[in-house]
């Protein structure tokens, strides 16, 4: 089959909607347009039924006992805000300390920073060079004042999957609420909120081949019953935790996306891991001083993050962007003009953070695409190294650390 350009390998930023998902959604824009809170006519009942089905599909994906534990939001960012701020407000009397990690996605970090400004204390637990959080470090960080532990399930840059069950067990033993940001993990890797001791879980539709604009927060109802203060007041929808008219077509799509992802997870995971491993082998066997970021085994199947020493990430993307969509931890590609704090947290030098490239594969990528992207990446890196003064110095045997850089 002929390869269609540009090739999308940026599936940890978003995914295309699966045709099965789109098909399920369409009737809910037109003939089935009812408001699920309209209790007194068939339009409302039909919409409510559709929302409840989606709730059950998402509950099943993450092993929730009761579909009522699923609260719909506008996406992962809102879910994380609701979880952290909701717990902080509700349990303020109990304590003012929160434990999280240095590699949470921006929403997690930024909400924690805001809570700090509001008088909460936050401990940001470091990660090991492979991206894994040492559970003992979390245990050390917990104090009698701790009300919440929040650790991401799988990282958005390096794909590293944390030992969530061990953290859940620890949180339970300490009587602390446990939130996990599963925006990257849900639909990709098995999740069981019961077996893993998860009290709150954030997820989003658009990273599992559903539509953009809808997400969910799982809120445990039993053992313990978790209570959160709402961010948005209004009609009292979603059991008072998130007011606002539910976007029924998006929710139907989210439900279908969860169902499809759950059904094909094992096969898809194996297929993507094989493609990813091929891409990794192709690149690492052809490019010297290219380093894999994150844990080699404990990571999402479609994720590959590599730092190419002596070349800057944005310049690599620029060499590929007519053919391939990828992303980089380079400062030049971020809105903050800072290099990736995730790669930096692994203990890598800032230069390697600037040099990181993330390949994230999705359901519709093919072997041909992998071969092409791998080959082109290798060419671009070699070309850029030929014009890199750092590569030249390194080849001359100069240790770059010994140079007095006239940096800004």
């Amino acid at each position, binding site marked *: 089959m002929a390869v269609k350009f540009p090739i999308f390998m940026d599936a940890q930023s978003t995914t295309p909607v699966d045709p099965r998902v789109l098909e399920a959604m369409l009737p809910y824009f037109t003939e089935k347009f009812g408001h699920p809170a309209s209790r007194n006519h068939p339009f409302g009942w039909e919409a409510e039924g559709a929302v409840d089905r989606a709730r059950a599909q998402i509950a099943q994906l993450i092993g929730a006992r009761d579909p009522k534990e699923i609260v719909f939001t506008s996406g992962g960012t809102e879910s994380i805000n609701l979880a952290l701020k909701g717990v902080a407000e509700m349990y303020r009397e109990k304590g003012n300390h929160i434990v999280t990690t240095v590699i949470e996605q921006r929403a997690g970090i930024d909400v924690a920073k805001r809570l700090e400004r509001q008088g909460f204390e936050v401990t940001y637990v470091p990660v090991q060079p492979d991206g894994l959080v040492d559970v003992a470090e979390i245990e050390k960080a917990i104090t009698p004042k701790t009300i919440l532990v929040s650790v991401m399930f799988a990282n958005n840059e390096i794909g590293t999957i944390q030992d969530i069950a061990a953290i859940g067990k620890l949180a339970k033993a300490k009587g602390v609420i446990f939130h996990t940001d599963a925006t990257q993990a849900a639909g990709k890797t098995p999740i069981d909120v019961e077996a893993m001791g998860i009290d709150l879980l954030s997820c989003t539709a658009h990273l599992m081949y559903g539509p953009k604009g809808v997400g969910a927060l799982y809120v445990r109802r039993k053992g313990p019953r978790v209570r959160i203060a709402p961010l948005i007041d209004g009609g009292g929808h979603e059991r008072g935790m998130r007011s606002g008219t539910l976007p029924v077509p998006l929710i139907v799509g989210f439900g279908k996306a969860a169902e499809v992802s759950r059904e094909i997870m094992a096969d898809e995971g194996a297929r993507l891991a094989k493609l990813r491993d091929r891409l990794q082998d192709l690149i690492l066997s052809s490019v010297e001083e290219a380093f894999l970021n994150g844990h080699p085994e404990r990571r999402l199947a479609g994720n590959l993050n590599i730092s190419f020493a002596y070349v800057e990430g*944005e310049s690599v993307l*620029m060499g590929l962007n007519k053919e391939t969509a990828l992303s980089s931890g380079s400062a030049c590609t971020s809105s903050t003009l800072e290099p990736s704090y995730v790669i930096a947290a692994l203990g890598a030098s800032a230069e390697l953070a600037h040099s990181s490239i993330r390949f994230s594969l999705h359901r519709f990528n093919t072997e041909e695409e992998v071969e092409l992207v791998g080959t082109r990446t290798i060419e671009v890196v070699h070309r850029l190294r030929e014009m890199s*003064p750092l590569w030249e110095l390194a080849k001359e045997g100069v240790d770059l650390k010994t140079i007095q850089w006239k940096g800004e």
Partner: protein
Amino acid sequence: MAYSEKVVDHYNNPRNVGSFTKDTPGIGTGLVGAPECGDVMKLQIKVNLETGVIEDAKFKTFGCGSAIASSSLATEWLKGRTIDEAAKIKNTDIVNELKLPPVKIHCSVLAEDAIKAALADYKTKNAETAAR
């Protein structure tokens, strides 16, 4: 963020990539930036010792597309100028020529720094040669 056509052109067809042997008479070398900042430029000029005209210029850059384009453009502009004329190249000239967006202005500043560093290096070395 879309790149300007000129940035894309310099990125795809960089002018004057390469290196001169540093110690050759008439060569001035500037190395500016820092790896941890994501930008390092090496810019070299080859000056005719009799006329003071820059006969050739070369660069190597570690950095984003705009940094590569800024240094590539700088080498083009340097060729044929006297060292006094070269000193008059301003980063704003580079910004205007390449249509750099505000977040990329630092690339042009770095290119101007590289030009100045290469000229200063040439002058220092040339003074030594003259003293001999």
